[in-house]
């Protein structure tokens, strides 16, 4: 039961930027595929209101973390592709450190607590 729990709204909001940055390290992508990839990686537990991703992407673009381009791949429909910029890679590094800090702290705490399984 617990394993199937959806990520809380707050955590979804906080993790959107690092998730987007991380998926884009795999190469440029468009919104629909980004969402599909995140859903797949999270086992369906990260569920975005899909339309809400776009304002985030636009904000990241304005912060110069990513850049975008409308393109029509051969035989496909016209889509807006996003790719990482240097600033985005730097932002991701920072995000990684921060998430690892939280993760590390929680891990230490949880391991020291005596618990029954």
């Amino acid at each position, binding site marked *: 039961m617990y394993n199937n729990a959806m990520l809380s709204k707050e955590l979804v909001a906080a993790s959107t930027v690092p998730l987007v940055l991380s998926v884009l390290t795999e190469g440029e992508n*468009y*919104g*629909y*595929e980004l969402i*599909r990839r995140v859903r797949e990686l999270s086992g369906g537990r990260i569920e975005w*209101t*899909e*339309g*809400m991703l*776009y*304002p985030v992407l*636009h*904000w990241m673009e*304005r912060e110069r973390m990513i850049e975008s381009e*409308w393109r029509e791949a051969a035989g496909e*429909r*016209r*889509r*807006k592709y996003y790719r990482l910029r240097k600033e985005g890679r730097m932002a991701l590094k920072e995000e990684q450190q921060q998430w690892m800090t939280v993760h590390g702290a929680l891990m230490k705490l949880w391991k020291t607590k005596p618990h029954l399984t």
Partner: protein
Amino acid sequence: MEDQTSFDLSDAIQKWRRDLSQSAAFHSADLDELEAHLRDAIPALQASGLSSEEAFVVASRRIGTRQTLESEFGKIHSGHSVRNRPWLAGLLQIVTPGLGNLYTGRPVRALILHVTVLCIGLFLALALLWLPGPLNLLIPVAAAIVVAVFVVLDGVQCARARPHFPLERYKRWYVYILAVLIVAATEPFLMGNYVIQAFPTPTPSMEPTILVGDHVVADKTAYAFSDPQRGDLAIYRTPEFPQRIFVKRIVGMPGETIEIRNREVLVSGRRVDEPYVQFIRRSTDETSPGDSMAPTVIPADAYFLLGDNRDNSLDSRFIGPVQRQQILGKANTIYFSLDPDTQKPRWNRIGKTPN
């Protein structure tokens, strides 16, 4: 399987897009992107066994409703979130009708409301000028209150209807200032020049007809379609005193010969009966330069004007006849009157038309 003929997918997508485009939060590039997303999502859902209608419904629900999306998109286009504050919208409506609508992101409504209020204002100004007392004040004042309440409530309502609304590109502080300045520079000017203008009365030259402390509205339409008449209380300027605006009574008409003999005014040789005149000096023993004037021919297109308070009036006796084009309008209604000594309103004078 589903009856495919009853559901037109491309039609549904178009409708969906049109609904989103109702909100100014979405720019057309946003809509392009969201539509591309929807068009990607639908075939994937259909592949898992849904009908085109079901796929459309699920895909559009996953994207989110207009209400959920517009505030986030709005933030992006503005840089920060904007809350439409009802009290501010109401307040701005008072500053300039329509400004509150503009603030809540309704420029077309703002324009329509502003023009409507302007037309009502014009109509009420004419009602003030043309209705008999006491309706001349009661009706415009009551109507103005009703209109003001409606305008404020409309602004409040607009803000409530859209509590979160994006900063449009036009929503900049200088746009508001500009709008107020344009309105403030044009409308009172046009209204004051062509329709109605209010004046205080600081001097007693027209007593007992107009008292010091009377606030008078001038009818600027009075001489647009008809000529000034003898006995009219005309409001005019003269080049001799460019800073002052006079109100005096028309006594001599264009082309007439006017003469004053020991306080008696003669027009073309005939004595004029002036029941409205007051003299301060009890006897004629003391003479004043205004008591007599040699016969003077009033030029064509000019008028001879005198103050009713004959001993205390700077008028045509001293500065000559007044050109028709210098006459601005006609004293119409005392809209307010304050006793200069007691500083109390003289209620019995308010609403009266001096003549």
